[in-house]
């Protein structure tokens, strides 16, 4: 994709990835930056007024909370890219998030719930649980030719069933007891940089991990052989097969990666921010897994665009929370929350921009034409 730009300069590659993240995220990022700028101007020019109060929402802490809220969405979105690009649509991301969030809390709790080491082990246990469930999904769709949508649905329902059930078993309630969260990592010196410092260098390790994962995912998909195979596996698996690469193996890796990353998303949510598992209703994940699917559709399967979309949706959520705190704005917060969903439909129907890999959902067997 972006590995062969005509312009090899640094500026050129920046321009190149901006061109690649998808039209919608580009638009939205632009709008966001513009509104932040306007907000800052209002703040400076008319301090203390009502507009300034509104504009004051957009501060460093807003960005921080947006990033924290975005953890499950972005991780699951990145994971979804790997699965879907390889030709397997994973609508079970929601279930993977639930199971990893629950497992992380449960394991941490069983290890005492307080020690940082217990929290870290909980994190990885959550990742493991999600990975295992994703592996089950992979076996179902790749080995047993299960319908990808129904199997994905099953993964969601399994997560949705197991999380609350086991919560009651352990804590006697669908909501867990509290556990510690991971300590903030502060990089001395760098954290003093204005704006960027507190956001990136004085942050939850999960947020830092997320930012790193975004870049690594982008690198893997765009600059490795494996990235080429993933793409070929989803677009024209027989081209990969005739080139001597095992399509099934590539798809296994793609799906399992979606489990690993969703695991970091779900477990990261609880060990990074929430500190407990909430299992009532649709659980604390509350549709983040489905929003994750929309983020990569928005981001055109590019990790950078996907992350941007995820952060944007999280920002809308953070905004809605803050708007509720401003008395003089009768914000229909419920409607703001719907913006991502409505925009996905508009994008799918009227922009028709996102190109879904052509063989997604199709079982592939070597030798079939």
């Amino acid at each position: 994709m972006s590995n062969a730009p005509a312009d090899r300069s640094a500026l050129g590659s920046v321009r190149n990835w901006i061109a690649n993240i998808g039209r919608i995220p580009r638009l939205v990022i632009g709008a966001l930056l513009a509104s932040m700028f306007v907000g800052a101007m209002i703040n400076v020019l008319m301090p203390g007024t009502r507009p300034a109060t509104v504009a004051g929402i957009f501060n460093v802490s807003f960005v921080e909370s947006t990033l924290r809220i975005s953890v499950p969405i972005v991780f699951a979105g990145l994971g979804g890219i790997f699965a879907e690009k390889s030709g397997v649509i994973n609508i079970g991301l929601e279930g993977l998030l639930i199971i990893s969030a629950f497992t992380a809390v449960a394991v941490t709790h069983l290890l005492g719930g307080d020690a940082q080491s217990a929290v870290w082990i909980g994190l990885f246990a959550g990742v493991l649980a999600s990975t295992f469930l994703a592996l089950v999904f992979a076996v179902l769709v790749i080995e047993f030719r299960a319908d990808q949508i129904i199997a994905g649905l099953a993964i969601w329902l399994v997560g949705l069933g197991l999380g609350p059930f086991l919560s009651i078993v352990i804590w006697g309630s669908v909501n867990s007891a509290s556990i510690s969260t991971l300590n903030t990592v502060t990089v001395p010196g760098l954290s003093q940089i204005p704006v960027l410092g507190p956001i990136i260098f004085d942050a939850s390790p999960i947020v830092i991990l997320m930012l790193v994962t975004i870049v690594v995912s982008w690198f893997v998909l765009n600059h490795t052989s494996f990235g080429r195979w993933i793409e070929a596996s989803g677009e024209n698996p027989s081209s990969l097969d005739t080139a001597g690469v095992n399509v099934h193996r590539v798809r296994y890796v793609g799906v399992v990666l979606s489990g690993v990353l969703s695991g970091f998303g779900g477990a990261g949510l609880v060990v990074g921010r929430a500190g407990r598992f909430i299992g009532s209703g649709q659980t604390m994940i509350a549709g983040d897994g489905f929003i994750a699917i929309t983020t990569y559709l928005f981001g055109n399967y590019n990790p950078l665009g996907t992350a941007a979309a995820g952060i944007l949706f999280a920002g809308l959520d953070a905004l809605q929370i803050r708007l509720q705190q401003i008395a003089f704005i009768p914000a229909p917060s419920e409607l703001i929350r719907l913006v991502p969903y409505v925009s996905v439909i508009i994008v799918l129907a009227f922009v028709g921009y996102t190109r879904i890999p052509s063989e997604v959902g199709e079982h592939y067997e070597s030798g079939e034409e």
Partner: protein
Amino acid sequence: MAQTTQPPEDDTGGGTDPGPAVKMENITKRFPGVVANDQVTLEVERGSVHTLLGENGAGKSTLMNVLYGLYQQEGGTVYLNGQERNFQTPQDAIDAGIGMIHQHFMLVDTMTVAENVTLGNEPRKWNGLAYDAKSAREAVRELSDRYNFDLDPTAKIEDISVGEKQRVEILKTLYRGADVLIFDEPTAVLTPQEVDELFRIVDELTEQGKTLIFITHKLGEAMEISDDITVLRDGENVGTVDPETATRESLAELMVGREVMLEVEKEDSQPGETALSISDLVVENDNGVRQVNDIDLTVREGEVLGIAGVDGNGQSQLVDSVVGLEVPDEGTVDLYGEDVTDISRREHIERGMSFVPEDRQARGLVMDFDLVENALLGNQYDPDFTSGPRVDWEATRDHAETIIDRYDVRTPGADTASESLSGGNQQKVIVGREILRDPDVIVASHPTRGVDVGSIEFIHDQLVELRDEGKGVLLVSSKLDEVQQLSDRLAVIYEGEIMDIVDPEEVTDRDVGLLMAGEVPDEYGGGNE
């Protein structure tokens, strides 16, 4: 399974000629009910272009798939450079230096030329961690330059022309070190200019010592490009000829052969008024290429208008436009003087147009459904089988049983799922259903493809009977003997255009063969309308 054959001459002695690049000896390959290759022997000289010529279904692709490791032969031996080789998988064949350029490109549209060429064998950097895009580009550019392919390694597949895509496919085989390149109908998807370009590349490749095998049914290009031509017919090698000395006539004869004709008894036609008239019809594909190019045809009552032609010359698009499954880009279709170009498929049915589709298992029948339910397909709004929104299953069952009786459908009963019927019986169900609709016009597309001999005769008789009842019949077939025997007038289609309309009684096989290949014969044996 493989017959024991003399081991090839020991070629360890330095300097001895290892023999032909490819030698296939007495290859036999059967599929259920068909012998696709019957003791076929083929020798391909190193550095030559060898064409496998034959009609569709003659066994050309099967033979090459055996060579490429996709199929395992039941008998016979394959030699590569004098050594006995039997490839179990395409990967074995690729490793041995054989490359196949498929008719359907195995390319990833969203990736660049360089990425596609190197897929699976990517150059790496950073200790194998990263894909080395630069080396890939350079390697592909270097290969492209060496063979004058004129390809931009950084272009995306979806942005390049069909001819360029084909060159990417060729580059893929060269990148993997192929010495023997198999081209499966390479010109089928190309424009004439692109064909010229391909032939230039073919020369380039042979000059550099590559061995090329061409699969085609177009004799013109076979004559133009080949060093040797082997003609296959009905799974047999009917002769290997030198294009320098062969004539088009002799090749056409070899291809078409003197098949045992199933004689169709029929009287002279008594054509009445015009039933179906097609004027200035144009159908373009998504890329704007004309697949039906300005066709004018009329079918009169009481006559069979045959359309002869090699598959893929626009017949499907023409038929779909006539029966209401596709709206043509230009032109009109009139049924008894009324414009039916834009009306729905359902209205076509209601106005008395029956259609025997070429793909019976996808269109003509619902494979999971039994014959009763299939008897309703297309009749589900006919008052004979419905009352209001309700389907009259009793009437439909009677209808299915009528079809089974009258059209000699061999089935355990009307409750049998159509997928468990043989191809011939499936086709008889469709033909019966379409004829019993009492149409004014019937369009039959390859009505006897994959049908056993007995059923062929039966279907032919039915079509003639319809004609005699004063219906208009539009018959499309790539079987020359079939269209020639059944038609009262014979139109030959080539690349979306009607080459000519001839009298099938008078015209020779050879002349029709030439017209089908896009050649205009010097003179006709018969009356030219």
